[in-house]
């Protein structure tokens, strides 16, 4: 991200849409200000020269944990559906979404 990346109203609306969060017009100025402060803070990192440094994925020195291909989970339909606002015949029921 470069230094002139600022969150404007369009970007804010797009972020809201992608995150499924309604953006209230009245609060939008405050939100933009907050987000721009956060970005500004993070952008300090751009001052460091990382040209020859590989991205660090972990500091623990561990390898990716791996499991055997064994079925030892599932079969808990009731638990899975427990918090569903609406369910029927073992399915989650949601507002119709067709693409």
């Amino acid at each position, binding site marked *: 991200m470069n230094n002139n990346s600022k969150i404007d109203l369009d970007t804010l609306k797009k972020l809201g849409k992608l995150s499924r969060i309604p953006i209230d017009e009245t609060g939008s100025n405050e939100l933009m200000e907050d987000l721009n402060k956060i970005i500004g803070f993070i952008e300090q990192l751009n001052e460091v020269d990382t040209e020859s440094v590989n991205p660090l*994925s972990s500091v623990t020195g*561990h390898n990716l944990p791996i*499991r055997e*291909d064994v079925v030892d989970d599932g*079969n*808990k339909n009731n638990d*899975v559906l427990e918090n569903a606002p609406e369910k029927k015949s*073992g399915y989650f*029921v949601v507002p119709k979404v067709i*693409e």
Partner: protein
Amino acid sequence: MKNTDQNSNYISGKTGDWEIVIGLEIHAQVLSSSKLFSGASTEFGKDPNHNVSLVDAAMPGMLPVINQTCIKQAIKSGIALNAEINKYSVFDRKNYFYADLPQGYQISQYKYPIVGEGSIKITDANGEDKVIGIERIHLEQDAGKSLHDQHPSKSFIDLNRTGVALMEIVSKPDLRSPEEAASYVKKIRTVLRYIETCDGNMEQGSLRADCNVSVRKPNGDLGTRCEIKNLNSIKFISQAIQYEAERQVEILENGGVIDQETRLFDTSTGETRSMRSKEDAHDYRYFPDPDLLPLELSDSQISEIRSDMPELPDQLVERLISEYGITKYDANVIVEEKEYVHYYENSAKNRDGKLVVNWMTSELFGLLKKNNIQFNQNPISPNHLNELVELIENKTISGKIAKDVFEIMFATSKSPKMIVKEKGLEQVTDDSVIEDFVDQVINENKDKVKEYLSGKDKLFGFFIGQVMKVSQGKANPGLVNKILKSKLK
């Protein structure tokens, strides 16, 4: 490259020829017992939300742990597609909202896939080999299933498929016709089935394809492409590409421009249509999944899998040609399914390989198709086909009688030797018996004999036919020919 052959792939429009450029993304479900990041079963057809762990349902605090077998399967597939295996790969989050994706993101691989560039050989429309480039294969999670037809305003969600491992196999844009695309998908499916990394069952959705289609003037600059999502049969893939290419040609020839977009194929109309929610569809905001460390493989892990690879379809085709002397075409037909190869090799033992392949691909496949019977329900055992060909080879029965025997074998599963014995179908090779048949025919057709003797040579075929008829097809045709000639002088 012959120009005429090339042209057969073109679409001819008002302004001249158009070339279709196709790249495919195949989503192949990995054969494993449990899911990519959870211990829930991958079994198809269970009650809704039965094969779901709290990891798959994306409950707070759940952590993904990768399945060793899925890693191996991806490496195996990469090796089979002559591809580079990347010793370092990374899992990323691909963010989007959809009801059958509880996490709100799909765990996939973006910048660093587990498998890099490879290639696969297909047969093009002219029966020639063509090499298609593979761009990459990455591992990712499948999504759940939405049912839209249960309620007028609601969708029903089943998460059984959520989190099952997929390999996304991305081709280079090397395909030039719907037929080539079909041939490519078939070949990929065959290879994956041979090495048992995917069952290739398209009806159950184990193998699906997204097709990127664009058109251009032959050898011109690439056009704008459209992506047709989620095609689950080879027929639909060909149809969708054909329709889409023609649609694009029509737009371009009328002065329009192609919008880069995602489209859906309507199987009932054979048309593609634009997806509604396209504007933000491609803003996936990929980033490395903080729950998963990079996947690092050692040389020994990879070489162990490499040394354990089964015979691949291309190698098998070569071996069948050299070992059994059959044509490349026939070898390709047999190699298409592993069970065909098994059947063929058993029935061709010590027999004329060409004869066996003909019986198998024309007679056997023909009868199976006619009676709508699956190959694994085939009533004729390889031993019996072997025996039948032996009876033809040692001249116990003629090829013509063999067809009748074959139909009885198909209907009864009896051994051909038994059928021949029961029905008395052995070929007559006794000179004196055949002489009797010949005499009978000559006596019953005195006028024809006269015509023949006065120069109407064509009648010879008629006499052969009559003798065969009198012998109920059992007389040895060579002997009939010889004896008839000597008697009709």
